[in-house]
């Protein structure tokens, strides 16, 4: 808590933003989000949309892993559930997007809750293995249940605005608004969950589950709820991928994706909504930046050209390690430190 700020009412105490500077910063971010699509080309819009989708998925995972302390390696498969449900509904029933996206989310929430059942007995690494099973089982079902999912073949998602409408092709610009709109809604919902009884119960379970139970928190119910809420948001991200890319294949939802999302929230900041967003920006932008550096360097030293892709991968790993070494609590903490530094600047203690 910052010194010099006193809350005289409960409303003020509960506010998400306390100072005029915080409010101004938020206004700047909103302004940037509104102006950005009009000045960016399709490549930057594509990156922004990727960040948006990853941020939604990462917020979902952070609810489970960062806030409730239940590690999950099933993220990739849960994304797949959302994507396949949305794609199949649009293909077979001609269902419009405003129906497929929430349906994908609800289906993922149900599946997530089912695979969350072992969490009552299992903790830590053991739970990680149980969720790894979820990952493998779901992908196995998708690739082998040919009659429904089409097996390993890709599904071509249709984007309908209404039942019986025409397949609508969205540009990156149009999808920007859908993705960012949903990202804002998911962010607001999540921030608010942690101002309620449910959110505090999640945090209590993470900090000490036995103590939480003694305090009267129904562990089974709240762990299930954490899995369901988390998977719901992950399902939104999955369904968005289906409609935005218009093609769904299991290759996009492998175990590597699960680990990627864990990396996003660890680097961004466990147990922080804004951290999920910073992590998404970082993990999407870093390879793109490295690609551009590699592209600029190619041809400079011709004999080095063949090494560039390998150097790129090594640098990617190195940067992540450096980040974790310098600030294990993630970018969210780093940002907080910078803020604190400038708050007192130039007269620090």
């Amino acid at each position: 808590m910052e010194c010099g700020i006193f809350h005289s009412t409960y409303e003020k105490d509960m506010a998400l933003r306390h100072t005029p500077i915080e409010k101004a910063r938020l206004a700047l971010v909103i302004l940037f989000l509104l102006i950005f699509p009009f000045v960016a080309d399709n490549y930057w819009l594509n990156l922004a949309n990727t960040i948006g989708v990853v941020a939604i998925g990462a917020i979902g995972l952070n609810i489970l892993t960062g806030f409730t302390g239940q590690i999950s390696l099933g993220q990739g498969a849960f994304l797949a559930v959302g994507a396949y449900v949305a794609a199949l509904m649009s293909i077979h029933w001609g269902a419009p997007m405003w129906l497929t996206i929430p349906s994908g989310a609800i289906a993922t929430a149900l599946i997530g809750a089912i695979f969350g059942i072992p969490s009552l007995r299992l903790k830590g690494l053991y739970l990680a293995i149980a969720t790894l099973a979820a990952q493998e089982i779901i992908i196995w079902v998708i690739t082998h249940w040919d009659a429904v999912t089409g097996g390993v073949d890709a599904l071509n998602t249709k984007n309908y605005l209404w039942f019986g409408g025409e397949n609508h092709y969205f540009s990156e610009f149009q999808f920007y608004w859908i993705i960012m709109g949903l990202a804002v809604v998911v962010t607001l919902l999540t921030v608010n969950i942690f101002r309620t009884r449910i959110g505090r119960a999640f945090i209590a379970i993470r900090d000490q589950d036995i103590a939480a139970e003694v305090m009267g928190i129904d562990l089974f119910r709240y762990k299930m709820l954490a899995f369901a809420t988390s998977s719901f948001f992950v399902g939104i991200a999955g369904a968005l991928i289906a409609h935005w890319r218009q093609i769904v294949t299991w290759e996009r939802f492998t175990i590597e994706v699960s680990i990627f999302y864990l990396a996003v929230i660890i680097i961004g900041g466990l147990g922080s909504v804004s951290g999920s967003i910073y992590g998404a920006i970082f993990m999407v932008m870093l390879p793109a930046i490295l690609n551009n550096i590699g592209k600029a360097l190619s041809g400079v030293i011709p004999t080095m050209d063949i090494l560039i892709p390998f150097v790129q991968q090594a640098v990617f790993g190195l940067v992540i390690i450096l980040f974790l070494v310098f600030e294990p609590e993630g970018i969210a903490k780093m940002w907080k430190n910078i803020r604190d530094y400038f708050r007192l600047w130039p007269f620090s203690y």
Partner: protein
Amino acid sequence: MKKFYLFAAVLLVVFAMVLAACGGGGGGEEGPIKIGALFDLTGPTADVGTPYANGEKGFVEWLNAKGGINGRQVELVGQDYAYKVDQAEQLYSQYVNQDKVVAFLGWGTGDTEALRGKIAKDKIPFMSASYSINLAKLDEAPYNFLVGTTYSDQMIIALKWVMDDAAKKGVDPKVVVFHHDSPFGESPVPDGKKFADDNGFAYTNIAMPKGATDLTPQLTQAQDFGVNYVVIQNVSSGAALLLKNAKSLGLTDNVQFICLNWCADELFIKLSEGAGEGVLGVMPFTSDFTVPGAKDPAEFLKSKGDSLENQGLHYVQGWWTAATMVEGIKRTLDAGKDINDGANIRASLEAMKNFSTGDVTKPITFSPTDHRGNDSAKIHQVQNGQWVPITDYLQSRIPVE
């Protein structure tokens, strides 16, 4: 606080480099003609992806030294994407929107299939190293062109040979398809199944798990099926592992193994360490480097201190794929049309009849109703560590559903 300054400094440097990298901007009317490309140099198919990419790059360098296309230089804007679909989408989007490439040379099945909608929307003529029959569906992939014989057609060519061979030996063919666990691997499986059902012989497929170091369980499964012919749809490293395991099980003596094009290469012979002897390969691209079409690549590599024997047949394959695309662009320019409109290049390619690759493949012919430029392959056999042709061109062109 010191570490923050350090971090801020590192970040600043990185961003400055990015800004410098992005500063280039799109190509003007008289700048180089830009062609986009995706390479797999570090991913699961890098073993064959690297020589193929070298072939594409080599062709462009050779062409530019000769004066480019009608005096205009060609720039190949390409990078490694590690066989990742997301990475492919990002690079594709960057090359098309920022670099303004006029055509594209791709690689994998999964990523090309994922991109085909965008390719159609952006009107970018696209030649992938994937010969999946899904990419020949004109309603879904109107800008994709296939230089190689489709995997499905290769499969039919292989199965027809199997039927003839089994009839000679007086046995009932029992075919098992071992395939890469991906859209690439699965691509020819259903069409092969249909052919087997129509001709009444036993047929099944077994996936080769990614990263497997031992395929004995899968081979045992095939043994239980009573297998006598195996068709492999995988890259060389996977196929070589399969053969080594099969040899230690004693399967190679009474089972005929047949590679489709991505494992029928020199690398397979090298990696299988003798276990590949007697294996057949369905090869749309020749491994014979005495044909006229291999002369330019061989001389070019020699001038670089390398050799075609070292790079292998996928080098020639990449070389001639790039050459076919460049020919389409050249014909568009010769006709006085604007190459920035992909529809014009597509029209030139669709008008291409019997384009000679110097006997590297059968001459390439596209048409407005079929983008399969090639429908033939010679069956080769590994004899004394060399691929030797044992048939002339065999042909198959099954209908695209």
